[in-house]
């Protein structure tokens, strides 16, 4: 299973359709403070079903929709799609490509799609259950949180191990 692209539109500081393509190996993401690097990581976690606005540095989910700048009006919707390739044999889907999409309006309710077909959050969760990309994932280390896995209390640390089991 390979990550191909992350498409961001209306999420946080991305008011225009933006595509980030990934090749094999290590892709470095660089840029000055406040330009939107961590927002790309947030977009990935949100699309895979993250339910807590606080975990994405917002107060409420609505904070995640582009709220405008000095000269650009706010948007009313946020949408992120993640495209995975070489999924056959890894995930229970037809074909070799999988596109997971999450869309949310200012009203706050989210809609999920797999290969453009509407699904429930639970379906997205089940799809990724055994991939290590689940809820308590050690695969996404947030900014400033690298030490939290060692600073965590012994029982909090269990969640990472259960994810790996």
């Amino acid at each position, binding site marked *: 299973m390979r990550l191909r692209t992350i498409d961001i539109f209306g999420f946080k500081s991305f008011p*225009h359709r933006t595509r980030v393509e990934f090749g094999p190996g290590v892709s470095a993401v660089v840029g*000055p403070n406040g330009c939107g690097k961590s927002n790309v990581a947030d977009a*990935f976690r949100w699309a895979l079903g993250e339910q807590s606005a606080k975990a994405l540095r917002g107060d409420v989910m609505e904070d995640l929709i582009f709220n405008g*700048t000095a000269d650009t009006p706010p948007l009313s919707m946020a949408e992120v799609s993640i495209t995975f390739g070489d999924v056959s044999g890894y995930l229970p889907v037809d074909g070799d490509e999988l596109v997971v999409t999450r869309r949310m309006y200012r009203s706050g309710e989210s809609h999920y799609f797999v290969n453009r077909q509407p699904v429930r959050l639970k379906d997205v969760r089940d799809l990724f259950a055994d991939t290590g990309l689940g809820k308590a994932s050690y*695969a*996404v280390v947030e900014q400033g949180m*690298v030490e939290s*896995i060692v*600073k965590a209390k012994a029982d909090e640390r269990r969640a990472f191990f259960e994810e*790996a089991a």
Partner: protein
Amino acid sequence: SREKFVATFELVREEFQRIFREAFGGGQADLKLQAGADPLDAGIYVYAQPPGKKMEHLSLLSGGEKALAAIALIFALFNARPAPFAILDEVDAPLDENNIGRFLKILARYRDAVQFMVITHARRTMEESDAIYGVTMERRGISKVLSLKMQEVPLEFMEVAAATP
């Protein structure tokens, strides 16, 4: 199930001990399940002994040592269940030049099995990546993503330090 958890715990423990020694160039580390508790509820304790020092509670380690120990633990979890994709957001920020080098050496070993998105300000991490994406805000408040070659990376994206003479 209990057997599965204990088997995973043992695997992660062995890997953590091996990767820690590589990350610190010696020393030793260990993971222990809370004594007397059921493995399905027990807390997990982490011990670390940088080379030449006494084995101690993680809290006495320095900021950089904690970050490096955390990185070793995250890669150990990867060995138990390799997620296809990982995001590391400025995990190299607390590390000095030598430890950034050790981190990159470990990262390079997973490059074939796992795709990484590494958000960083450190030049060395950029130099050793397979692709570089610059995120900018040419128009204030609006993020844009560009694919870059190393020589095109604007220097204000990086922080200045220097490598061993």
